[in-house]
């Protein structure tokens, strides 16, 4: 059983203001208003195509919004995506990286891209904190399991010391033990002050780790709850109710 972090984060690190993304007549995201403060974990729930990944890509500046704003630590992502990305860390659903390099070398490579001047010792501490065994640090990544690759991805995020962390289906494909380890890690990062936005299908993990949960369908944020206000069963019930509703 995980402990949920205390919610004492008035500063909005991640903020969406009427954020909208359309592809022609198809609205992938409609008028999203959302904010995540320091130490908060916001879990975005929804079926495939609900708009979760679109939201994350808009915060990353990989997509241009049709209207509205995405802000990271007060920086308008559309106006200065590079500056906004310096405040962010991102872990995709599938962490691929360079198979020819070792876990440590991948971390070194991506940490340097972000401009971090960590030495080898600090980088190995990041891998340790991410849960990657020391014996695996210098093995080529192409032999890693999905869970091990994800740990390297987390280490890259840890090394960046970013204000916010964006996670896209992070527990997808992980076994329960790995999933639990990941949740523990995310909680510790939140305790360190990171604002975390996590898109997920995993209702259980969302209830266990989240400060707040939002349910999306058809590009709209349909409902939002404080995680502690719902039991697992309640969350599942309201989620299914939202999924069965009409657009």
């Amino acid at each position, binding site marked *: 059983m995980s402990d949920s972090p205390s919610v004492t984060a008035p500063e909005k690190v991640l903020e969406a203001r009427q954020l909208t993304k359309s592809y022609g007549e198809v609205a992938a995201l409609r008028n999203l208003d959302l904010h995540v403060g320091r130490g908060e974990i916001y879990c975005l729930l929804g079926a495939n195509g609900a708009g979760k990944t679109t939201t994350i*890509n808009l915060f990353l500046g990989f*997509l241009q919004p049709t209207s509205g704003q995405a802000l990271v630590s007060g920086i308008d992502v559309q106006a200065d995506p*590079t500056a906004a990305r310096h405040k962010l860390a991102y872990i995709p659903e599938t962490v*691929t990286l*360079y198979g020819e390099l070792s876990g440590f070398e991948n971390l070194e490579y991506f940490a*340097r891209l972000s401009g971090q001047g960590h030495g080898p010792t600090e980088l190995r501490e990041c891998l340790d904190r991410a849960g990657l065994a020391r014996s695996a640090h210098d093995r080529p990544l192409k032999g890693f399991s999905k869970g091990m690759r994800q740990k390297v991805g987390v280490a890259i995020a840890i090394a960046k010391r970013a204000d916010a962390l964006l996670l896209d289906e992070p527990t997808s494909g992980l076994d329960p033990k790995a999933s639990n380890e990941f949740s523990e890690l995310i909680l510790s990062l939140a305790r360190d002050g990171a604002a975390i936005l996590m898109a997920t299908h995993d209702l259980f993990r969302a209830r266990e780790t989240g400060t707040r949960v939002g349910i999306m369908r058809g590009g709209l944020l349909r409902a939002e709850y404080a995680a502690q206000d719902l039991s697992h069963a309640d969350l599942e019930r309201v989620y299914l109710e939202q999924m069965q509703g009409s657009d």
Partner: protein
Amino acid sequence: MISLSHAIRDELRLLRRQGVALGALLGLILLLVAAALNGAALTAQRADATARIVADAQLLASALAEQAARGAPTATSPGMVGYSLLSQPAVLTPAALAPLAIGQADLLPDFYAVTARGSHQFMTAAVLDNPLRLALGSFDVSFVLIWLVPLVIIALSFDLISGDRERGILTIALSQGVRLRRFVLTKLAVRMLVLVLPLCLALLIAAGIAGVPLASGEGAVGMLLWLLGFVLYAAVWFALALFINAVPRSSDRNATLLAGAWLLFVVVLPSLTNLAATTVFPAPSRVTLTTELREATEAADRAAAVARAVYFFDHPDMQDGDMDQTAYYQSVAESEQQIGAAMAPLLVAFDAQAAAQRRVVAAMQYLSPGTTTYQLLTGLAGSDGRRHVAFRQEAQRFQGGWSEFFSEPLAVGGTLTAEDYRQLPRFSFAGSRPSRLLGEALLPLFALAAMVGLLGFAALRRLKEYSVV
């Protein structure tokens, strides 16, 4: 922001681990060395052959001089010596960089055996059939650079952006806060360094192996311009790879497009250029050449027969004998003049067609970086035909002087002495001056640089709209 040196080091490590670059580079270096040896062997073979011809001619001249000193009739007759016995080889010595690019050198004669007879010997139709031999050239260093280096560049950079995009690495990389342009240009720069620097060094070594006189003015300037041409040509292909990658596509599709570009610029366009030049300005046919020469010779023979009839009419005592040797060779000189006069218009037409073909090639070369670079490299090596044109013109002028040397005493019934043999005209052809090399190279170099600039600019503009998801 990541320092450039770190970025380069990281990319180098990645490239090394991926293994493609090192293997391809080693292969290219081996091919360069083999090509240099081949080019050197071909050049040396031709040089040895002409050296033997020159030596033989000198021996013959010395022997005739000794005979002339003893008053032997065969050696003192200007007609017999000039029109039958002695020829002076007009030799085109290989340019400094000749072993690196054979070009048209093996199609064109590198010497003319100059006699007192006419200059129709200077016509050759071979070059008019192949004004641009890029598609048919020899295995030399220029072949490796123009044909094979782009294939290695394509192998190194067809997935410059698409590879990382397909594997999901691009989103992680860009989320670190590095700009796409910088990320991509660093990868590109490292690939260029890894390929171009070692190949430039290998080129210098290959040139040394091939016997290029790098210490001479012509050799040093020529080699420098060669290296610059190669670097720009490689840069064109890297810029093209960047341009193709600057739109989100699969790596497979990028590879297909780049392979298609190689086919177009290295095979198809040069062949079309050749076709255009020979179609618009076709060479006089060999049949025409042979027919004209035969008719001119027959006309001259008929005139000579008339002259002999007149001679025997004037010298009835010689009716049953041969013409006086001097009179005979005077009639030969007359015949040769008639043949030369008859062939002169064809020679002019031949030169005009060749010049027109060169103009077509010179204009169309800028459609393809392969053709531009080929013309540049063969031009610097003196094997693109232009040097041969200058050589042939010089040889023709020399032929006029050589002919006069014998026809003047022949006309007045004079004889040759040993001293005359010491005064025999000698042919010399000035080599390429470094300043001329630089002047001729400027436009193609500028064209290549412009191609790099245009492709690079277009690629960077496209990158601004690049969608990573």
